[in-house]
């Protein structure tokens, strides 16, 4: 059978492996039936491939009382070059979760597509959705499969967030290149500008913020990341390119409309005009 014989030929019956009872995981099915379609099955030459492909940069996520927010800047870089100004790095994974990616952009986007298909496939075959922990573990397995490429500089580091319907809260998971999975409380950030974003959020985040205020806090954090990290893009006021923001609550997730993000970004920029370092955090104790 040709490489895509089963999938592509309109007039070909269903191959035997399609009818075989077995897994409800799409990635497992793919690795048995057509492993060349898996992102982790790339064979590269020796040496580092890190400078060959664009890299995505900063992703920020924060929880609020009714859900979770994730935002990503729009820049992809190749060395000192800005490879793309309006790349999207935050994607819905399914109705109640989203995934943001830092690292090698091409591989990461492919991995997100596989992860999205994985979740939907399970849902259709089993008639029920995976638990939040189940989803985050599946993503860990996909990242683990990529370790060989990560060692050649093609690392993919996602940030996963979603609303846990059983627990009734927003949850955030971070990963390392070996597939390690870590649950984060309150907020987290990955990518080259993540140190600055995390420092910013540390001062701005409060757990009683509303959804809109949380969005503003993560946009401030991305602004601070862009301020100090050359690979992170700030709000592009001339081209009207603003961060991608996903908001997930018990009613499901949606991408915040560009106009709404623009309004918040304009407000942030307005504040920075007066105070370039951003909102000041209060000091404890009596003022001098």
């Amino acid at each position, binding site marked *: 059978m040709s490489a*895509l014989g*089963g*999938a*592509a030929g*309109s*007039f*070909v*019956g*269903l191959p035997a492996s*399609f*009818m075989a*009872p077995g897994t409800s995981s*799409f990635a497992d*099915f*793919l690795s048995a*039936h*057509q492993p060349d*379609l898996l992102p982790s099955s790339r064979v590269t030459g020796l040496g580092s491939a890190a400078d060959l492909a664009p890299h995505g940069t900063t992703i920020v996520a924060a929880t609020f009382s009714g859900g979770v927010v994730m935002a990503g800047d729009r820049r992809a870089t190749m060395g000192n070059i800005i490879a793309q100004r309006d790349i999207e790095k935050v994607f819905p994974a399914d*109705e109640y979760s989203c995934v943001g990616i830092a690292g090698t952009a091409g591989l990461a986007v492919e991995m997100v*597509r*596989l992860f999205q*298909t994985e979740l*939907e*496939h399970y849902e*259709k*075959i089993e*008639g029920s959705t995976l638990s939040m922990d189940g989803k985050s573990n599946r993503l860990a397995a996909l990242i683990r499969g990529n370790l060989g490429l990560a060692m050649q500089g093609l690392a993919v580091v996602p940030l996963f967030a979603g609303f846990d319907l059983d627990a009734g809260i927003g949850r955030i998971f971070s990963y390392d290149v070996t597939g390690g999975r870590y649950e984060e409380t309150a907020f987290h950030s990955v990518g080259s500008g993540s140190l600055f974003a995390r420092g910013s959020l540390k001062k701005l985040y409060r757990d009683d913020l509303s959804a809109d205020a949380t969005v503003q806090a993560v946009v401030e954090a991305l602004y601070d990341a862009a301020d100090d990290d050359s690979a992170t893009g700030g709000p592009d006021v001339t081209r009207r390119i603003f961060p991608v923001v996903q908001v997930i609550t018990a009613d499901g997730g949606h991408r915040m409309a560009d106009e709404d993000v623009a309004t918040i970004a304009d407000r942030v920029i307005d504040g920075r005009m007066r105070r370039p370092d951003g909102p000041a955090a209060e000091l404890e104790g009596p003022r001098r």
Partner: protein
Amino acid sequence: MSMPGMYVTPEQMMKDRADFARKGIARGRSVIAVQYADGVLFVSENPSQALHKVSEIYDRIAFAAVGRYNEFENLRIAGVRLADMRGYAYDRRDVTGRALANAYAQTLGTIFSSGGEKPYEVELFVAEIGDAVGGDQLYRLTYDGQVADEQGFAVMGGAADVVAAYLQERYVPGADLAAALRLAVAALGHSDSADRVVPDEDLEVAVLDRTRTQPRKFKRIRGQQLTGLLGLRGPEQPDGPHDEDSDAGRGAEAIPADDVSDPTDLAGGGVPPLENPLTGEPSGPSGPDDATQVIPPVGPATPPPAPPA
């Protein structure tokens, strides 16, 4: 299957296989697919909450089936794999109902005409919705791999003829969801002798609804939404026990009493085992009166009660 040395004409063999498949399909309750203003509606009387007859395949494609559950479930999973594989390898828009219907037709046709396997006792609908009513497609696939392009509505399963005749008289194209649903449910309850009201909880209802904002247009309608759409319908009357109810979940056949004198009779019955199952010691002629006899006889003496209809 032919006896050795007996010639069976190909015509006769195909006819036997077709009769066999048709008989299996006729044992089940009907499934109706109706095109309405916003897409395609599927309605079936299915008392089981767990085993679905109607399911999602992809963004705009749904699947419905009657017949043997394990066989159509196999086809459904294969369809989901095919669709997800294509959508992943190419793009979501490249997954079409036509390609899926063709794949099913090839598979069913091959199984039907190959001498070895028994034919599948299933009939399928594959539906796909477009951006407008004109783009909606409804395919019917039969056990032998024939594909038919249906218009307006289609029925398959046990009482398909009666239900289809009822729909034929009353179907109006372009109805809204509530009207189409009420018509389909009334048709399901219709029979030559009398009409009955199918209980809400026995209905499996799903739509491909192009007005949904999500890319995945398949949606199940149940609970309050279903009751609300159906409105007041008079006293409900569940269907009686049906042949298909006994297909799954049926316990073992009643075990006949053990004939102790026959060494080849291995069936456990009302007679206790000869040795104590705990200690392995012979329990002696006293048998059940022995105080150490704590294990009850193996196997039920009467068949287990039939699963609720």
